[in-house]
């Protein structure tokens, strides 16, 4: 009964949503978007306008986004703080080939991730994408060998410092240019389409990349950890 009602209501809602389709047809970019397109290069020198938007114009959003990620990992850790009540499965270790292959692939994937976030202001991709790639390497490692212990101390340090660095970068803008996260005058903007360009944007994106990589890895670790027998607690998981 409730299911039928649910479906009917959803269909009704869908009908109203479909009514919005005409609004979604392509249009010329709005005033703000046009400003980015026209002046983005002048103002930030980053070839990738999306990156400029993410890190500079809407950098405050991105700081929030990083916070969300940080928060959800911390939150998941908080929710999963107890171990009781779960059936623990002893997993059959995966095959030697898989383990070796995973270890072999780990470094190239991490490097690839780093490449993506370092070039975030030039090409598609950026801190989040790069971080996600790095986390996928960690995931591979953990899937191949569940008992693998990640270097928690280093990860926490990286996580904290990357986040703190992001805030500091913002404060630097505040100090130098009078505006939080400002890209003006903190670092030279450099030349368009060069690696060392776009001022503080690549620095922030690198920090974001590190942050996202470690956060997602921590998240995986927390989740997988619940299936493992309890071990010595060391600060936040």
């Amino acid at each position, binding site marked *: 009964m409730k299911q039928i009602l649910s479906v009917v209501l959803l269909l009704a809602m869908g009908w109203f949503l479909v009514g919005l389709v005409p609004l979604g047809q392509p249009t010329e970019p709005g005033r703000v978007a046009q400003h980015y397109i026209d002046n983005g290069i002048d103002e930030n020198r980053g070839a990738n306008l999306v990156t400029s938007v993410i890190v500079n114009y809407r950098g405050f959003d991105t700081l929030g986004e990083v916070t969300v*990620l940080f928060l959800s990992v911390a939150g998941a850790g908080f929710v999963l703080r107890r171990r009781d009540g779960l059936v623990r499965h002893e997993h059959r270790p995966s095959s030697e080939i898989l383990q070796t292959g995973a270890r072999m692939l780990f470094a190239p994937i991490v490097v690839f991730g780093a490449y993506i976030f370092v070039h975030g202001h030039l*090409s598609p991709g950026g801190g989040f994408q790069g971080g996600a790639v790095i986390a996928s390497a960690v995931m591979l490692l953990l899937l191949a060998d569940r008992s693998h212990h990640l270097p928690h101390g280093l990860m926490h340090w990286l996580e904290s410092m990357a986040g703190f660095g992001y805030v500091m970068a913002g404060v630097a803008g505040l100090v130098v240019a009078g505006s939080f996260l400002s890209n003006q005058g903190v670092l030279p903007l450099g030349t368009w389409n060069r690696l060392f360009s776009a001022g503080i944007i690549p620095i922030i994106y690198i920090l974001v990349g590190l942050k996202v990589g470690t956060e997602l890895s921590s998240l995986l670790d927390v989740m997988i950890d619940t299936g493992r027998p309890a071990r010595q607690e060391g600060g936040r998981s």
Partner: protein
Amino acid sequence: MNAVTPATLYLVTAILLILIGLAGVLVRRNILKMVLGFALADTGINLLIATLGSNPERTAPILDKPELLANPSLVVDPIPQALVLTAIVIGLGVTALMLAYVIRLYALRQSLDIRDFGRLKW
């Protein structure tokens, strides 16, 4: 609107994804599947936002070629893409937290049925 434009196709798909996701949330009793429903709906939302910034006649907003630099109006609006990124991350965060909850809820009641988690009411 005679011809079905790509945007219409994307939008309808997005709406369908949202509806299917929500249907999963509303109809499935397994909380894990409900979480998956939300993930699906999130995808629909992301597609929707991305579509709102898309234009088949333009290219990506990366001005890495001189001709683009010279004529920036060949690229699409970069904002929805930035928003989608944020939306994805937020969706991820929420999903992760939901999954963490599912783990603990299962530990608590040894069940994944949403109806077993209705002790607080009225």
